[in-house]
């Protein structure tokens, strides 16, 4: 795998602007070789679906400008589409039980929720905050706009709030040890 391919992989994974100095360090190479590889990658991406954006010191991978019409159309569709059962269920859990971590959401639903969470965030229905107790993990909660949309001034106004809390807490308490990766 050559340097250009490595740059592509790193930028794809990071999905945000990355400094050239950081890239050089990560890929254990000097500026000169890096710049050469960047140019090589740019050439390689010509006519493809992705493009390399260079903003001063920073690099980012994005969709090719020719695809912008397509992407806009898709983004619009994404927002106007119905949530569907799985997303509604996840959002409801976040409203009743938030701030709640992803492992907890997954544990209650019995399935992995990562893509659904992403969609809920894109639609501005849920947001994530850093867990004060553990800065490596995120907690999900409903956005203020959503609460306003639902006409809720406080969460406790939700129907059957107390009993739902009890049931869910009971379940989460007994399943504490089985979340995350450490299974069997």
């Amino acid at each position, binding site marked *: 795998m050559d340097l250009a391919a490595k740059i592509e992989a790193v930028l*794809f*994974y*990071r*999905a*945000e602007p990355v400094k050239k100095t950081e890239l050089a360090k990560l890929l254990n190479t000097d500026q000169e070789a890096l710049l050469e590889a960047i140019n090589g990658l740019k050439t390689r991406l010509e006519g493809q679906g992705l493009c390399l954006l260079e903003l001063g010191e920073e690099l980012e991978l994005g969709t090719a400008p020719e695809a912008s019409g397509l992407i806009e159309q898709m983004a619009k569709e994404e*927002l*106007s589409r*119905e*949530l569907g*059962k799985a997303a*509604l*269920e996840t*959002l*409801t*859990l976040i*409203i*009743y039980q938030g701030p709640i971590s992803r492992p907890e959401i997954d544990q*209650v*639903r*019995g399935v992995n929720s990562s893509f659904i969470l*992403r969609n809920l*965030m*894109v*639609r*501005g*229905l849920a947001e994530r905050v850093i867990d004060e107790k553990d800065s490596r993990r995120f907690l999900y909660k409903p*956005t203020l*706009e*959503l609460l306003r*949309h*639902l*006409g809720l001034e406080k969460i406790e106004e*939700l*129907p*059957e709030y107390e009993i*739902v809390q009890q*049931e*869910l807490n009971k*379940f989460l308490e*007994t*399943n504490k040890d*089985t979340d995350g990766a450490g299974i069997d």
Partner: protein
Amino acid sequence: MDNFKVKVGEFEGPLDLLLNLIEKRKLHISQVSLAQVADDYVAYLKSEDEGQSMEAMANFIMVASTLMLIKSLALLPGLQLNEEEKSDISNLEDRLKQLQRVRELSLHVKERFGKDIIFTQTERAKRVTVFAPTHELIIPNLLTAIKELIKNLPKVEAIPEKVIRKVISLEEVISDLAKRVGQAMKMSFKDFVKDKADKVNIIVSFLGMLELVKQGAINIEQKAHFEDIGMESTTVGIPRY
């Protein structure tokens, strides 16, 4: 959540135990090898039965009854089996072969899992979001959804009645088998005349096994049928006339 596991000792399920016993002796899976490890299996169950739940034992005992059949058949080829018994035996053999194959294949999965992970994009930190609610987002729908979720939370499963019924009738299976073994022995008496001492030993150990199985079935009433097991002395006595 441990209640979801059906473990006896270090083994998860009867097939796990049985396959282990066969592989320990480096045998191929067949009726012959199953007959050979039947005693080991029952001995293991007996040693582990303390403090095991009915649920944990039920699956193990069902397999024990099939093993007893196989062993009886190996000792007494004249023993008549019904269709269900025949299919139980071939089914057990197939399932073991299948499990063995799955274990073989699982090495391919184990070897690769987590080694060269293909990554997808990390969550974009700065993303333009547009507040886009849908008509689904009304309070009554939320209540329906959360109730459905709570309803579907996993509960500890009770052992299905079908299995319990099978286990309870195991007692009958044992006494019935003991009777049939006795009959089959009379029928094939001529065969026993040859090599007398060895055959007697085998029969004694076989009946010993039946007894062990009976004790292994901790949740089963045993006293009423004790006399059937008492057949041991009668049976052993057979070669004398």
